[in-house]
């Protein structure tokens, strides 16, 4: 969703002292033995040090290509998140090549990338970052060259891919002078940061009043990195009535999304553009599975075989 979270970026570190608690909510996951609650706002962890065993126990990873697999979760949450389907992709950057693609429509110049337009050899693709009217927001590095300069903000996160395929994260303002640009093959920025400092939830997501709307629910998309170096990408869809309501703005709050990424085992994580922009491709050819979006985007993270 193209939410220009000015408040998130500008006020994240400011504001009055926040009230002590998150809006009341809880999350449960469907298991073979029924629904099991695994997170409560009143007892929300501020530091995720390991995957949540309940969630980890129900994930059934399905490989679709070398280094790429995916699993599904069914969550029950509060309010309009009463049924949320989560598609989780797991990508090993050591076994695929990660790159960023852009596409703009001729004439209108509008953003023009969608999973339908992903390069044929792609084994994974997802819309990356956030965007303005047609241009990506924040820092974009393509083929080792800075395409767009960094965006500011305490809850901005940059995901960097170096020439060996290793992934690095930079949270907060990007100080490009200090980055060894020669080693960066690609990079993009997004917001808000969900997990930083080895699984810590930013204080702005721990309680309201720090510039982030912690009660609004929406369809979400986030990317994170697990402690074993694999990337985790989670896409939520409202699951109330088959696929008919996929794009309704129902889903998790920002704090719940941070919890989901932490519970999946991420140590770093950031939100991507969800809502009608959220889209993901897994696998290739006849074996491919795809979750389409309703809006084309200017930037995509794509994995191709090594």
């Amino acid at each position: 969703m193209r939410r220009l979270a000015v408040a998130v970026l500008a006020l994240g570190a400011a504001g009055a002292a926040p009230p002590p608690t998150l809006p009341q909510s809880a999350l449960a996951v469907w298991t073979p033995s029924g629904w099991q609650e695994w997170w409560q706002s009143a007892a929300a962890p501020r530091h995720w040090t390991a995957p949540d065993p309940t969630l980890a126990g129900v994930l059934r990873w399905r490989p679709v290509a070398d280094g790429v697999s995916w699993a599904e979760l069914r969550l029950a949450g509060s309010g309009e998140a009463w049924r949320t389907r989560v598609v989780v992709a797991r990508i090993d950057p050591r076994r695929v090549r990660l790159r960023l693609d852009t596409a703009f429509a001729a004439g209108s110049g509008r953003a023009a990338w969608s999973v339908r337009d992903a390069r044929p050899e792609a084994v994974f693709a997802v819309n990356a970052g956030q965007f303005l009217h047609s241009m990506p927001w924040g820092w974009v590095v393509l083929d080792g060259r800075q395409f767009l300069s960094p965006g500011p903000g305490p809850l901005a996160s940059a995901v960097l891919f170096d020439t060996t395929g290793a992934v690095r994260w930079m949270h907060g303002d990007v100080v490009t002078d200090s980055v060894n640009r020669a080693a960066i093959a690609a990079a993009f920025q997004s917001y808000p940061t969900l997990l930083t400092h080895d699984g810590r939830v930013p204080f702005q997501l721990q309680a309201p009043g720090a510039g982030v709307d912690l009660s609004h629910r929406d369809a979400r998309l986030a990317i994170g990195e697990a402690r074993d170096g694999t990337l985790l990408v989670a896409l939520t869809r409202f699951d109330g009535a088959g696929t008919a309501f996929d794009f309704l703005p129902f889903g998790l709050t920002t704090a719940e999304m941070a919890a989901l990424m932490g519970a999946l085992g991420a140590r770093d994580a950031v939100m991507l553009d969800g809502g009608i922009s959220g889209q993901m491709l897994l696998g290739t050819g006849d074996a491919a599975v795809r979750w389409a979006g309703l809006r084309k985007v200017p930037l995509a993270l794509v994995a191709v075989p090594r």
Partner: protein
Amino acid sequence: MFYLKARGHRTVLLTPAHSMSGPEGPNPMRHAPARSFRRAVHSLAVVCLLGAFSVPQGAAGQIGNVGKKARDAAGRAMGGQQQGEAVQFDNVTLELTPARLDQLIKGLRARRAALDGRGGEPSVSALRAQRDAASNAASELRSSNGRDIDTYRDRAYQVKYCRDEAFNEKRNAREEASRNRIMSDPVLLQKFMELSQRAAEAQQRSDTAELLRIQAEADNLYGKPTKADSADVDRKCGRSPTPPPALARLDSLQALEARFGERLRQREREADSLAVAGSGLTTEQMAMGEERAQMYLTQVETESAHIGFTKTEVAALDARREELEDLL
């Protein structure tokens, strides 16, 4: 229909839409009208099943009456035209009443005016044309000089890799040689321990910038490469090759494209600010209203049921449809 941004290894190949679909079937917004009824029946079956699920004990009170929600959803899906409150409105998702839709359209018009150029500034489409010209010129240059450029880059990479490795080996040797010196000097030892502590902390919080600073300080501690080291590495790896003349031109065109990209983005930021100011909505309310209006237009285009909108909203959106189609 699309122009391809061909930049080195990231050429985007826009192929015809694949026939594959996700595990839940094609995007419902793209269904042919004839399938609407079948989908509605499917939805009813699914929500009835969902109604039978047990709700986790601790979350039950907050999740609400699942059966009622399922019935409501089923009723909405069967109704063709959306009935009742399909969306939970909050401070971000506002009901698109005629008055709010009017605010949204005012904002969209303000954005359009800004993007079309004001105060003698070039329009966004003019900036895009300049950016695209630079991009296309770069692509042509790359096409006609691709072999020379790739050969240079391959060789330059090999040389750089060899030199980095060779300097690393020399650095490791200096570290080994310096270890005894540091261990026997309390001041150096203290400094070394401080750096180790800082490095561990930076590693824990993935602070790349700090790690690079620490690396530079450690290099100072161990001693920097000497002229003799550089001469050795030159002999072993050679020097980086001379870049082909086209590369400087390519760099210049790509820098120009990036500058136009920055200008475009700045104009879009300004236009978004004017849109928000013109609408009287917040940034988030404006973005969500725009997104839902786009969703409505997709439903119109695919002749799908207006799922996710109240009757009031559908009436208001129907009345302003042509304006929305023009502005979005």
